[in-house]
């Protein structure tokens, strides 16, 4: 069978590995469409021929669920992630507490984040800074990129001295140093939910969802720095 998977683009690498193994093992074939979670969700709303949706944004999954576009009972949280504060080049670690003088660290520089009201990584980052009481100090200095990778690039090129990105992205980028990790309770849980979509019934869908939960998939996700939700 052919299974069409709509997945957030931030999973490109992990899914490439999983695709190869899954196809070899089961003989099914996967077509994985990688785009922003919002674009994919809208397409699903408009009747896209997708079987599985993996979103980086629980909000969009909620929306689809409310509209009855998910196969009831198939939604589960696949991955966890964390957000970190990164600095350009080498830098000393800092402790991320309400006492952190982030504004002083930045000086004249910018704090690179994903869009703080629109893109999950930005939303989480803003929530953390608000919890810590730092947001008002730095708000004016935040440079919002349209996705996490672009925020990362701003720091990696040295254009912004600091940034807030996913731990998964930070780990792989040589030009940046992780100077601190935001505590998981300072922001809503960062989860990547997955679900079977209601529109079509391909028997192999369930097989693939099971595979995602399996050890091989877990290994692949972990190699890319994700934390797989224990279940």
């Amino acid at each position, binding site marked *: 069978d052919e299974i*069409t998977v*709509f997945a957030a*683009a*931030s*999973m*490109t*690498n992990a899914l490439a590995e999983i695709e190869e193994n899954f196809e070899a093992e089961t003989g099914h074939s996967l*077509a*994985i*469409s*990688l*785009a922003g979670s919002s*674009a*994919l969700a*809208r*397409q699903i709303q*408009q*009747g*896209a*021929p997708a079987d599985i949706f993996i979103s980086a944004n629980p909000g969009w999954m909620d929306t689809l669920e409310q509209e009855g576009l998910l196969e009831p009972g198939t939604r589960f949280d696949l991955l966890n992630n964390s957000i970190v504060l990164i600095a350009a080049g080498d830098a000393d670690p800092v402790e991320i507490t309400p006492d952190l003088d982030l504004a002083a660290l930045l000086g004249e520089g910018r704090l690179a984040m994903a869009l703080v009201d629109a893109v999950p990584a930005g939303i989480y980052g803003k929530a953390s800074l608000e919890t810590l009481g730092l947001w008002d100090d730095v708000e004016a200095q935040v440079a919002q990129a349209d*996705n996490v*990778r672009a925020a990362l690039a701003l720091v990696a090129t040295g254009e912004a001295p600091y940034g807030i990105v996913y731990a*998964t*992205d930070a*780990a*792989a*980028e040589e030009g940046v140093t992780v100077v601190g990790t935001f505590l998981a309770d300072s922001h809503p849980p960062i989860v990547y939910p997955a679900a079977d979509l209601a529109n079509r019934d391909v028997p192999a869908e369930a097989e693939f969802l099971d595979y995602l939960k399996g050890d091989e998939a877990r290994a692949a996700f972990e190699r*890319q720095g994700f934390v797989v939700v224990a279940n």
Partner: protein
Amino acid sequence: MLDWLGPEEWAAVALSLRVAFWAVAASLPLGIFTAYALARWSFPGKQLLNGIVHLPLILPPVVTGYMLLLTFGVKGPVGGLLNEIGIVFAFRWTGAALAAGVMAFPLMVRAIRLSIEAVDVKLEQAGATLGASPLWVFLTVTLPMTLPGIVAGAILAFAKAMGEFGATITFVSNIPGQTRTIPSAIYAFLQVPGGESSALKLVLVSVTVAMAALLISEILARRVADRVGGK
């Protein structure tokens, strides 16, 4: 050489060529007609038509893509109708071509329109006195004299279609072999760590193809201009 790019990337290159070619080929007649109408006729709603033609340029591509999704998706008013007679754009390469064509349309029309406006009306009059009806005057005088502009418009549109991303991914997603064009593939690579080198390869392919097209168009246009100018 062939394994310099993986099969999926080759598929993206082939798809992009097909999409760009059809985007231009299919919209060219309408582009010429629209350009002619804007250049030579005056009719109520002309400025409105002119505005609509330019819309894809003015709006962020995501918006255009979203509007295409709402209109030409299987649930959309036009998409639904076309679906009944077997024409499907949604999540097909045809949809990618539609998106690219729409985005490139204003460029094509402008170029052709400028060329038409440059044709001396006195020559068209000469054609009319010799018995050619307006349609024949158009075909035998205006059109051939406009060829350099049509070539320029087509190539501009082709280049744009090769590079179009935002509207395409929003409308038809990013499905390998179906709608994953070079820009969409580049996007996916850029969303994950370590994807830059793969992205760069595709950028090079894309640039090479477009340069070749440009060069051919220059040679074509030169030849036409020589014919008109001298021997």
